[in-house]
Every structure is written in C-alpha cells, then in structure tokens.
C-alpha cells in the first residue's frame, strides 16, 4: 500500500473567532479529492496548513511523506498550488513568470507550457496586471500545471471562470490523474465540478470535517423519499434519516443511509413510498451541513 499523498491527523488551529478542530484528511495517489464547505468553514485554513503557510497548533501533517512544516521546502518541490486570492507580480509579464518558475523546477515541461498557452489563449508578453480575472486564473494554473507536480492543491480554481474556461480547466485537471502516482485536492463552491471529477469528497463546516467518503457512496446512500401518509399514521424514523418534513398527507424524508429495504420499512408502517429521488451533490451538501448544525445546537 503506497504512502498517501496527503495525511492530516488531529490537526487543530485556533484563532480568536474561529477554530479548526480535529481535522483528519487523507488523499491517496491517483485520486481527486473535492473539498466542500460554506464560506468561513475552514477550507482555506486547512489548505494553507498543508502548504505550510500556516503552522498547526496541534496534530500531524504529512505531504508526500514529508512532515510539515519542518520539511516544507522538500514537499513543495512536488506541489503545484493555486489559490483564488493568490496574485502574480503585476508589472511583470507571463513570460517572465514562466522563465522564473521554470528556473526553479527541474521538471518543467516547456512543450506542455506552450500547449497550455495556446489552449488557454494567453499571450506571454502581456503584463499580468492587464489580464482579466479569468486569464489570470488560467495563467496561474499554467504555472502550476507545467511543472508536472505530483500533487496539485487548488483553492477555488474555477471560481469566477466562464463555462468555457471552466471546461478547459477541468480537462487539464483530469489529464493530471492519467498518471496514477499524481493526485489533486481542490476546494470549490461549484458542487457540479466536484460531483463530476472527484473520487473522494470531504465536507467541512465551522472548522470541523463533517463527512468524508468516496463520491459514489455519497450519491448512492443519500435519497429523498416522497411519502403519502394516511391520516392517523406516523411515519417511522429509521436510522440514517436526517430529516422528515411532513405537511398534511405528504411527507418528504431525507436519508443518508438508503437501501431498498427502507421502502419496505415505510410500506409496513402503512406509508406509501411514492417516489425515491436521487440527490445532487449540492443537495447532499446543504442537507449535510444543515443537519450537522442542528445536531450541534441540541
């Protein structure tokens, strides 16, 4: 069993108004992990901890086998990092940035960089400050991708991109895991992107990991059941049911542990299961967060 690419265990970080608690995260080679959470949940903090830009208060951080923050320079030799709030040097050109990064990474693939310039429609002699938002994001991605890193860490890589640019970026990201020794961790609000290309998905809210599993399991286990409830009958609340909303003779049940047997449980209690609906990742995400917050209150 090869070593995981990212391994966080019991990571904690305290700020005045925010705590990151007991963060556990594991990413294996060949996989893409989508990191999902509301604003302020701690995605960026977690990502910066695994990039050693922030030091954890407690817990272990290992990236590509290197403990962080001690061996951060060694780890970053094999990482490409793009963050939505990251900037390049405004007055300098993209070509200058390419020369600069290429001189630092021996694995720089100049042919691939040229191909990406073309694909992303970027002009290397243009100063960075003159680029539009989308062009700047693509330029920063180019600088990360062309060094062919073993690990790509992306904080909101497609935010603010038009659909065509998003499509181009996703295509390049998928190309990375053609090599099963490489891996990607990316955080996004765009649950559609996450749903499409992630192998593993981790949900974070208010500084805590609230769920982490492979995508197919999430999509398989979460369901909305539409029930017809005859008067006088109370629908049962089996294990795994997150929420039951009833009004009159209709009830909607959200469950995170669906099996076909569940239909039988309701039928036997006199409730008709009218429809069993799959949920999109966005719906799963919202339901997961909401139920987690309710639990914290009670």
């Amino acid at each position, binding site marked *: 069993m090869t070593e995981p690419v990212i391994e966080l265990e019991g990571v904690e970080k305290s700020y005045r108004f925010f705590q990151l608690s007991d963060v556990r995260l594991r990413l294996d080679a060949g996989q893409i992990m989508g990191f999902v959470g509301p604003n302020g949940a701690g995605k960026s903090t977690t990502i*910066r901890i695994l*990039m*050693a*830009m*922030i*030091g954890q208060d407690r817990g272990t951080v290992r990236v590509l086998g290197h403990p962080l*923050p001690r061996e*951060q*320079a*060694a780890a*970053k*030799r094999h*990482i*490409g*990092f793009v*963050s939505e*709030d*990251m*900037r*390049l*040097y*405004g*007055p*300098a050109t993209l070509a200058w940035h390419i020369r*600069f*990064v290429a*001189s*630092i*990474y*021996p694995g720089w693939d100049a042919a691939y960089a040229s191909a990406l310039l073309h694909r992303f429609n970027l002009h290397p002699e243009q100063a960075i400050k003159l680029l539009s938002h989308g062009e700047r994001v693509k330029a*920063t991605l180019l600088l990360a991708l062309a060094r062919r890193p073993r690990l790509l860490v992306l904080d909101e890589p497609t935010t603010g991109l038009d659909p065509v640019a998003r499509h181009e970026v996703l295509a390049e990201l998928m190309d990375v895991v053609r090599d099963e020794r490489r891996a990607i961790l990316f955080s996004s609000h765009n649950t559609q992107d996450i749903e499409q290309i992630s192998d593993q998905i981790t949900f974070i809210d208010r500084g805590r990991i609230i769920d982490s599993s492979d995508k197919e399991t999430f999509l398989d286990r979460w369901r909305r059941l539409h029930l017809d409830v005859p008067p006088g009958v109370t629908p049962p609340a089996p294990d795994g049911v997150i929420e039951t909303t009833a009004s009159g003779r209709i009830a909607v049940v959200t469950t995170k542990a669906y099996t076909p047997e569940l239909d039988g449980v309701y039928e036997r209690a006199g409730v008709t299961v009218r429809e069993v609906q799959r949920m999109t990742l966005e719906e799963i995400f919202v339901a997961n967060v909401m139920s987690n917050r309710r639990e914290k209150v009670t």
Partner: protein
Amino acid sequence: MSRSIVGQLILKDLYLVRWMIAGSLVAGAAALAIMPLSPVSAYVGGVSFICVLVILNIILVMGAVVQEKKDKVLLFVLSLPVSTSQYVAAKVLSNAIAFVVPWVVLTVAAIVVIDMSQIPNGILPFLITVLGYLLCYYCVLLAVALITDSTAWHSTVITVGNVSVNFLIPFLLGLASVARHREGPTAVWTADIAAILGIEIAAGAAALGLAVYLCSRRTDFV
C-alpha cells in the same frame, strides 16, 4: 539542486526593483553634480541627495515587502519550494543589496565629488554620519516591515525617521568637533563622531537581527 532557491528569490526581487535602483543612482548623481556649483546649490544638492536615499528606502521596503504581503503575491512565492526562513533570508538580503549598493555608490561618489571640488573636506564626517543614519533608518524600517503587517507601525517609523533626520542635522552641525573642523580642508574624525557611527551600525544590525529572529519563530505567514 542546480541553483539555490534563496539566490533565485534574490535575483527575482532585484529584477523587480531595477528601475528604483537605477532611478536613485541617476537622481543621486544629479544632486551631487549641482553641489559644487555654489553654496546655495551645495545646500540644495545636499538636501536632495539625502531625500533620494530616504525615498529609495521607503519605496523599496513598502514596495517589495509590504506590497507583496498585501497583494497576496506572498502566496505565490511561498508555494515555491522554499521554507519560510529561506523566504525571510532572501527578503532581507535582496532588500539589503537593493539599498546598500546605491548607498555605497552614492556615498563614494559624494566623497569623490567633495574631495575634487572646492567644498571643504571637513564636511565629510558630518555627511558620512548622516548617510550612516540613513542606512540605520533603512535597517529599522525593513525590520519593522518584516515583523509586523500593521500600517500604523510602518507609518510611525517612516514619520519618526523622516522627522528625526531634520533634528539630526542641526544636532550634528552643533557638535563642537564638527563645527570646528567642517570648514577645514581635511576630514577630521573625532571620537564622538566615531561613537555615533558605531551606534548607527549597531542599531541597524540589532534591528535586522531581531527581525530575522522573530520571523524565524513565526509559524503563520498568511
């Protein structure tokens, strides 16, 4: 590892401020050029000369250190294979080179100009002490910018630094040793001048040393 990352970062920083360095050399040279022409121009040239170095100081530190943090270019640099202590070392060294090189060039040029013109050489200890103060000021401002992100602190140091130069000059001119020898044809280095120079160097070094020490203990860079 072909070339050290610290070296690469230093070269990168110097490239980005190349026009500031060039500009300060040109402006400083111009200020020196007008000094020998007349007593008035000597005064104007002298003040301008000092201003050039003060301005260079401020725009280097504010531009290269503070702006990089504010603009989140810091994130780009920290994503490179560099440890945070290497980053700080590169920042200190590149900034030091960016300021010290023009400072040395202009100081030597000033000495040469004064020596070759009819401006009395006796003024040199005073001038060197003022220039030494500017170097010390630079070290302190760089140290403060490395230690804290607070613009309040930066503004305070800049204000105090600029204002204090205005007090330093009459103070130095009022020193007995300076007043006695400054119209003379030779530079006379007295003990009190030497002491002041010693304090300037020590203070500058201590400030930078403190900054490097505090930064090396820092774990959060963003």
